């Protein structure tokens, strides 16, 4: 047995992920691929949103989707049926994706010059908000049945996104205590520059504004005018 020695490290594990994320953003800039990280609770409607979005924009750009799930392949098959290439990333029980797993997912998707790749993160409002995936834009989806108090309960998620989509607006008549103005004010209170759109992935309401935002983001990205988001702060 050799002698024990002490190695001083003093390294934050979040800093390390931030470095991986920056490296991935540089790589994607060179490849001209815009990566968007989509986050929400389980069942808020991420896959339904993506299917409808793909149908609207697939003729304009080459699309890829990474589906992160604890298990199963249902979502990836649904996305392929809608007309985009998809891979399933099995997270093996993990509650979030970090930049390194995202890089591996992109490699699995293949190197086919995608214009836009969307990462459907694990359904969870807590952990994904703590790890920068290397995406250029973070989009969070809140559905009406979850309630308009979620920005108060999960402030980090609403702080670290550039777009908040309020989904299932077709159910507002049933969930009649959900106040659209109040939820918007609560989001902007934490994140004044956040764009808030009210949509229904079921009926298509609000999709013009949302897909216009996507097109605009893509054209800014191609022109080198889309700034990287600030690192997630915990």
């Amino acid at each position, binding site marked *: *047995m*050799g*002698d*024990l*020695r*002490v*190695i*001083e*490290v*003093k*390294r*934050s*594990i*979040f800093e*390390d*992920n931030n470095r991986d994320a920056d490296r991935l953003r540089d790589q994607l800039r060179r490849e001209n691929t815009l990566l968007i990280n989509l986050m929400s609770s389980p069942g808020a409607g991420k896959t339904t949103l993506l299917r409808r979005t793909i149908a609207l924009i697939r003729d304009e750009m080459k699309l890829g989707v990474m589906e992160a799930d604890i298990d199963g392949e249902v979502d990836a098959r649904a996305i392929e049926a809608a007309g985009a290439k998809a891979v399933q990333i099995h997270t093996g*029980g*993990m*509650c*979030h994706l*970090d930049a*390194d797993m995202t890089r591996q997912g992109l490699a699995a998707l293949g190197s086919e010059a995608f214009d836009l790749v969307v990462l459907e993160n694990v359904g969870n409002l*807590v*952990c994904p908000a*703590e*790890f920068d995936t290397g995406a250029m834009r973070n989009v969070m989806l809140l559905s009406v049945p979850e309630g308009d108090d979620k920005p108060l309960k999960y402030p980090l998620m609403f702080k670290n996104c550039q777009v908040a989509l309020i989904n299932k607006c077709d159910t507002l008549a049933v969930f009649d205590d959900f106040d659209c103005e109040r939820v918007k004010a609560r989001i902007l209170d934490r994140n004044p520059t956040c764009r808030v759109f009210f949509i229904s992935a079921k009926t298509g309401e609000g999709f013009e504004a949302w897909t216009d935002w996507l097109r605009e983001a893509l054209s800014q990205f191609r022109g080198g005018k889309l700034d990287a988001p600030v690192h997630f702060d*915990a």
Partner: protein
Amino acid sequence: MHELGVVFRVIRQVEEIAAENDVTRVESVTLSLGEVSSVIPEYLIDCWKWAVKRTEVMREAELKIEPIPAITHCDACGTDYPTIPHGKICPRCGSGETWLKQGNEFIIKQIEAE
């Protein structure tokens, strides 16, 4: 589970550091962990015990955790107070204009190795 993802990150970093320092065996890893860093030390240690068995240099490594107390600063009256019992509201003046000064850290502090 959040703790497992975090443990994999720590293991990856320790493996890198071990390679840079020609380490053949890691005896222990010490983390500085903020009181409000969103991971639970007991879960972290459970995940650790399971995950290190799948590695080479750190199969037997012990995980040591040094807590960092959470402290919040109040901008209204200038007081520092412990975050856990009082949260966002300053116990001295009742203001909500407060921010976390320390306590969400997650740092690999040191490694004992041979």
